[in-house]
């Protein structure tokens, strides 16, 4: 673990900016910052977004679990509950299709000159996040705590070594991608 490096705030801010720039270049070059590409994915006519996400997950899963096995990285799985994960993701999906960008790609869309992303999307997301912050105490006591399952990962859920889950997940995603290509998507 590079604990020393993780604690150095100034360097971390520079690393974050550099990671963001690289992320932005990749998203833009992949076409994921385009409204038409994102809506094409949701209309199931253009599978670019899914191909990008699934190949990122394949490469990321193997590498990050390798780093973890070597003691070089720690995982930070997010907690969830039925009321949080299912309801929240469906509201997000509604926004995804209505806006046509997500919080990362909207930033990339702003960078490539999409004014609907800047004046509509970014402002809307800020308002939506503000509404959530205002509702949070009430939601937290109610729906967000319904069906809580915490920050469990699949390997912990099944009580097995993580590679027993990593291997089939990676194989299944690769097979799915290959099927998408063969089907002509």
């Amino acid at each position, binding site marked *: 673990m590079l604990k020393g490096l993780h604690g150095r705030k100034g360097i971390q801010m520079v690393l974050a900016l550099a990671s963001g720039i690289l992320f932005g270049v990749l998203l833009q070059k992949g076409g994921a910052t385009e409204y038409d590409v994102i809506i094409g994915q949701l209309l199931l006519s253009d599978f670019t977004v899914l191909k990008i996400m699934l190949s990122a997950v394949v490469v*990321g899963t193997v590498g990050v679990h390798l780093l973890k096995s070597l003691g070089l990285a720690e995982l*930070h799985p997010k907690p969830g509950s039925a009321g949080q994960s299912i309801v929240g993701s469906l509201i997000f*999906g509604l926004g995804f299709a*209505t806006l046509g960008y997500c919080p990362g790609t909207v930033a990339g869309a702003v960078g490539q000159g999409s004014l609907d992303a800047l004046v509509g*999307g970014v402002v809307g997301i*800020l308002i939506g996040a503000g509404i959530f912050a205002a509702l949070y105490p009430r939601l937290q006591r109610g729906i967000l705590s319904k069906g809580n399952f915490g920050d469990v990962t699949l390997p912990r859920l099944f009580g097995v070594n993580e590679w027993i889950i990593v291997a089939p997940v990676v194989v299944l995603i690769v097979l799915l991608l290959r099927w998408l290509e063969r089907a002509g998507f």
Partner: protein
Amino acid sequence: MERWSPYVVGAGIGVLSWLTFLLSDKPLGCSTAFARTSGMIEKLFRGPAVAEKPYYKKFAPEIDWEWMLVFGIVIGAFVSARISGTFEMRWVPALWAAHFGTAVLPRFLVALLGGVFMGLGARWAGGCTSGHGISGTLQLAVSSWIVAIGMFVGGIAAAHVIFRLIAA
């Protein structure tokens, strides 16, 4: 080349996630930066008491690692678009124009509304397409697999209603 293969781009994002876990102990994510910014703007108007709100106690309204990441995305996409010669100030995307026309106001209002749902939903679910969809699923987090599937189920359903029913 204007576009790269989605597999090259995806693999690049995967490698980037190794680097952020290794060098910064952080998963890639974007939506808390918007929540923090929202708090910072509210603080400008309503004073320091805003930081005492329960949600901003959890996510302080300040510039942090993830905020710099999102700022970097804007720069990276700008540089990439300029180099590729695709940078263009544009209000209405082509696919929108083909279904709903080229008027700016309707697109602006729908984008604003979509943004509100997205901001609300991303914070409700605890993350977005990068935080849950990529970084969370690659950690094999149960919450992230549920959220990633839910985002696409909701998005696919809503996109079909908007483009196949409303636009038709």
